[in-house]
């Protein structure tokens, strides 16, 4: 059992964004940037893959951050400080390859900022100049700004509606950096909605800048057994849970990945409706 030591509400707008700081000393010790965990929050729960957003090895804690988009995450979000999560397996997936390459741009979109955080931190610790580009729909949905500032050399922010810093998309900012400011960039790491990752890769491709994309496909076991997470990378089928989650972003078939992510939308919607009713009854 893993106690919720701290609950942070990042956004009360639906879908809500919530962060838990969990007591998980062994996972905190083993975790490396880029890895994820699978959590189950009750006897009837499903296995939810969530990337580790932060950790404190001394305190023995890890942070997970999630948007309440489905029934399982809504129920997770209803948990309070002091409550315990039934199962956590991890860390899973291959860690990000961290080395000193020069200038690294870390692009995080929406809740994708959370998993980018440990990577930015590790890249900076390795001696890289880290420029982070954070994107959110609006100011109130922007998460982890302070943490990203301390994990980066420089932070740039875009909001879709212009409610904070610069109006626009992360792709506009990246394009400007590469093509107008002509900043030499050695590596780009991008995490966010697949469509955003696809277009970030389209920006970096003509410049031949190596780009890692961290994929968040559907998973069941998350340990290399079921194949639910498979994606086509460079024409070959790869498994996100054991071959990834990071891949060469220029090689990923995003359209196939997005189609596969929509597989359970009707079931998820039905589950959300039931969950809302249940929560109303218990509230």
């Amino acid at each position, binding site marked *: 059992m893993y106690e919720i030591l701290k609950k942070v509400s990042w956004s009360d707008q639906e879908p809500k964004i919530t962060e838990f700081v969990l007591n998980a000393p*062994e*996972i905190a010790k*083993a975790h490396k940037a880029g*890895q994820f965990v699978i959590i*189950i929050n009750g006897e*009837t*729960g*499903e*296995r939810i893959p969530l990337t580790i957003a932060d950790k404190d090895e001394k305190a023995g804690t890890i942070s997970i951050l999630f948007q309440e988009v489905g*029934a*399982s995450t809504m*129920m997770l979000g209803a948990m309070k400080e002091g409550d315990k999560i*039934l*199962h*956590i*397996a*991890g*860390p*899973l997936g*291959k860690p990000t390859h961290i080395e000193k390459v020069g200038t690294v741009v870390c692009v995080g979109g929406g809740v994708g900022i959370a998993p980018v955080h440990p990577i930015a931190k590790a890249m900076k610790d390795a001696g890289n100049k880290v420029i982070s580009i954070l994107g959110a729909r609006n100011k109130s949905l922007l998460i982890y700004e302070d943490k990203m500032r301390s994990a980066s050399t420089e932070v740039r922010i875009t909001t879709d509606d212009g409610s904070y810093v610069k109006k626009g998309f992360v792709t506009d900012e990246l394009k400007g950096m590469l093509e107008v400011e002509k900043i030499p960039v050695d590596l780009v790491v991008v995490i966010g909605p697949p469509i955003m990752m696809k277009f970030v890769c389209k920006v970096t491709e003509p410049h031949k800048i190596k780009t890692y994309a961290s994929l968040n496909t559907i998973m*069941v*076991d998350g*340990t*290399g*057994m*079921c*194949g*639910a997470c*498979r*994606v*086509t990378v460079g024409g070959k*089928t790869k*498994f996100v849970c*054991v*071959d990834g989650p990071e891949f060469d972003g220029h090689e990923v078939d995003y359209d*196939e990945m997005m*189609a*596969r992510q*929509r*597989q*359970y939308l009707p*079931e*998820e919607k*039905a*589950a959300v409706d*039931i969950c809302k009713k249940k929560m109303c009854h218990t509230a």
Partner: protein
Amino acid sequence: MSEETKDEKPKKPKVPRQGMPEQDAHERARNFKEVTLGYTEEQALLEASRCLQCKKPFCISGCPVGIDIKSFIGLITSKDYLGALGKIKESSLLPAVCGRVCPQEMQCEKVCVLGKKGDSVAIGRLERFVADFQAKHGGGELPKVAPSTGKKIAIVGAGPSGLTAAFDLTVMGHKVTVFEALHKAGGVLVYGIPEFRLPKAIVEREVKVLEQMGVEIKLNYVIGKIKTIDQLMQEDGFDAVYVCNGAGLPWFMGIPGENLNGVFSANEFLTRSNLMKAFDFPNYETPIKRFKNVAVVGGGNVAMDSVRTALRLGADNAYIVYRRSKDELPARKEEVEHAGHEGVKFKLLTAPVKVLANDQGWVKGLECLEMELGEPDESGRRRPVAKKGSEFVLDVDAVIVSIGTSSNPLLFQTTPGLGQTKKGYIEVENEDTCRTTKKGVFAGGDIVTGSATVILAMGAGRGAARGIDKYLKDGEWWSKEASA
């Protein structure tokens, strides 16, 4: 019900092989309750009375773990059911499981003398009877555990192989910790084999016995990730490690359209339904798709489990697509028969060539070729050869791929010194000693052999336990060069 009548009865026994009571085929094809109901005491006594108590019982040599079949059946005839169970447990930890899922017709029952002229003794059903009798009526004692040796052993994977090794090593007096990646112990017994063939309560019961004996089971521990094997041995003080983490990534066919929506590995489909109980969605939160027309590619037990699960989830047409003929189906005979009775359609001598998509990116058909059997191949089976111009489209909205699994890559990524075979499995000295190329590390089960059966994995667990016990005493290891 499914018992074949025989033309010729041997002198002895006078009673015919007792049929297994089953749920009605039509009814059970729509529920997840166990298909076979088990012998009554009366049936068990009749069946046991058929055993000739041979002086040289071949059945025992037909059992991969060498159960003293003759003696346990003898004990049944004298109504000492707990004694019979105790006799089985001298060699096998999981009689309630093996009585249900072992391919007896390929093992003990294949060599039963009665089988030469008629029907062999229904050994598996008797094994199940005594295990179920004890579960229902209680009694029986925990196995005796030898005084502590002070040695600690880590087992990676709580499937049939790991549970068997844990049992044997604990009885020998060693302290065993089992590390399981999933949130439930049992491995394939909980994620793979469906409830209608092996109720999960049985697995839980067996796991509980182990815990009562002092085995510690740590769930959600992915060895190779949270801890490496070297850390287990160097930091946590384990004297030996047994790796039995099972099969790994599913194989796909490599045909166009395999990543379309509606194509699943059998592992995914079964894990959702069995481990995550998605058949009971939304009471359980993991979703599963309910398709009307489903093709399962493959002919093994996993394929039969998948196709029968698809039926139970509401399919109108559930097909087995298999490129060889009925005689070559690797599944247990009983499962093939059960599937047929439940309405599964067999598309034999049929090989898929392409998964077809609708305009939404979902499966709308499976293009296949008809095959005929040609000359025997390396496996001794006649090689299927495509008939020219025989393409046809099977009208399905889902394809479940059940053609086996490769090895799990996790441990190799983080265990220096652990040798790998050409096929990607863990290299061992031989399947009896289970010694790997890394000192103190043993391996067995599917991670060594590739996809096999529960009982073979259990046999490997026994072998590993013996090997580990010996190693803990003499510290000897093998060298690949010396044995080459």
